């Protein structure tokens, strides 16, 4: 049992970082733009499809393909902000929420129409070799997911905390008008934030989609899960999203270990309800604003 617990700690770490990759992008957009983007999962799906087309069809290097998918979907995110969310800015939040639901339905059905329901799989360059760390094993692919996520989160934190751009992001999330008075280009900032969020979703899609199956509806689950994690962690809080992701990852892992895998989702929802009962703003959601 001891070995299995160590193994589960490692498994939970991987699921947590997988969730984190999705949840951070989701929470960034909410924190800075106050948009609940329910099409986040579809951007994940687009990332997976873009990676699939590049690796599976054109035999481009896996990592290059993921980077390209991040740029392409990130660019798409920029355009989505420009043409869908900007016209709705400063109107009721319900408008952007509805627009994002519409966008999500639109994207997944568009891909369904073009690509069909068939399943696809992204070929990966990883060997079957796995690593053993104090009795727990992890495959090369998952180890890569873990490391890349850690790297991305570290870079993101550094950017937010220590760069001028990051400072302007925090300023804009705290007071949009005052940031504009400081000379922050709000339109550009919003566009970039959406692009970063979309790019991260695309990276998740390419990295994780290759562990699972690529199909037009694959974004539904991860998108919803990201939303739940962000509520759990506190809407708009990046730290909350990361902590929420690991709380969720470990809750599911240990449910699977001590009970049954099919109750994972159930436990996730119970956890959400409990947290909201005790702390209605989520784990890291201040009572402000």
């Amino acid at each position, binding site marked *: 049992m001891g070995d299995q617990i160590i193994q589960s700690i490692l498994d939970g770490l991987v699921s947590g970082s997988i969730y984190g990759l999705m949840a951070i992008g989701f929470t960034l957009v909410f924190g800075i733009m106050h948009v609940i983007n329910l099409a986040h999962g579809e951007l994940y799906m687009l990332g997976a499809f873009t990676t699939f087309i590049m690796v599976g069809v054109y035999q481009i290097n896996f990592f290059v393909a993921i980077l390209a998918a991040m740029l392409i979907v990130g660019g798409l995110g920029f355009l989505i902000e420009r043409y869908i969310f900007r016209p709705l800015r400063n109107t009721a939040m319900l408008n952007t929420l509805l627009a994002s639901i519409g966008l999500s339905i639109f994207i997944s059905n568009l891909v369904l129409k073009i690509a069909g329901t068939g399943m696809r799989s992204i070929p990966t360059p990883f060997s079957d070799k796995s690593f053993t760390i104090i009795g727990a094993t992890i495959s090369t692919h998952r180890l890569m997911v873990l490391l890349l996520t850690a790297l991305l989160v570290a870079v993101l934190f550094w950017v937010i905390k220590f760069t001028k751009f990051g*400072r302007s992001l925090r300023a804009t999330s705290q007071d949009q*008008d*005052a*940031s*504009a*008075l*400081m*000379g922050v280009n709000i339109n550009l900032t919003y566009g970039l934030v959406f692009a970063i969020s979309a790019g991260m979703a695309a990276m998740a899609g390419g990295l994780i989609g290759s562990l699972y199956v690529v199909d037009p509806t694959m974004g539904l689950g991860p998108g919803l899960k990201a939303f739940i994690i962000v509520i759990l962690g506190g809407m708009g809080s990046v730290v909350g999203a990361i902590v929420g992701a690991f709380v969720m990852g470990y809750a599911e892992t240990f449910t699977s270990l001590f009970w049954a895998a099919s109750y994972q989702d159930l436990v996730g929802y119970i956890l959400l309800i409990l947290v909201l009962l005790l702390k209605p703003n989520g784990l890291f959601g201040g009572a402000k604003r």
Partner: protein
Amino acid sequence: MLKIENLQVHYDKVQVIHDVSLEVNEGEIVTLIGSNGAGKTTLLRTISGIKRASGGSITFMGEPIHQMTSHKIVEMGIGHVPEGRHVFPDMSVYENLQMGAFRRKDSQAAIKKDLEHIFDLFPRLKERSQQMAGTMSGGEQQMLAIGRAIMAKPKLFLFDEPSLGIAPIIVAEIFKMIKKMNEEGSTILLVEQNANAALKISDRAYILETGKIGLEGQSSDLLNDDRVRKIYLGF
């Protein structure tokens, strides 16, 4: 320096500014007085490009700016100290001041030097440079808001109700500061409800009444005008 002509501003269908024209010359302190809801804040927000004009023009240093986005206007040299301070609550005093220099393209050393200058002006800010701005008192936040605006090195300062909600003793200090900034070469457009104090430090003044200019003139004249005294000075 700043010239506003026949300005119109709407919120949805409600017109808030009707045909306002005013001018600020280099080196002046100009005061804009008016009661609550007269449209003073809207006027400043329109100058800064946060709010769009629906008619008329705003010219700054000879260039029309009423179509420009706010970050361009900041680059042109207009610094706005907004009503209610609007400091960034979850950022430190130091970071707030850094945000003030957001559009500056000169060297880090020059910015650093100006930061020291702000700390000389407001020693209180130096003591609290690592404190989160949201945890400070209203007066301290006002100093920070002013310091933040100075960091951008603007040619024209817009002050929106700097005395609002602040202890009287600090209000005096702030007005002294504004006067001093002017003496050191800054041009200032000051919006105030505290007409008495504002008229005392300014050169000229406009009185805004429900979105229109009601009266304008030298501040010293207005200070002695019967109507102004009755309505705005409360004598």
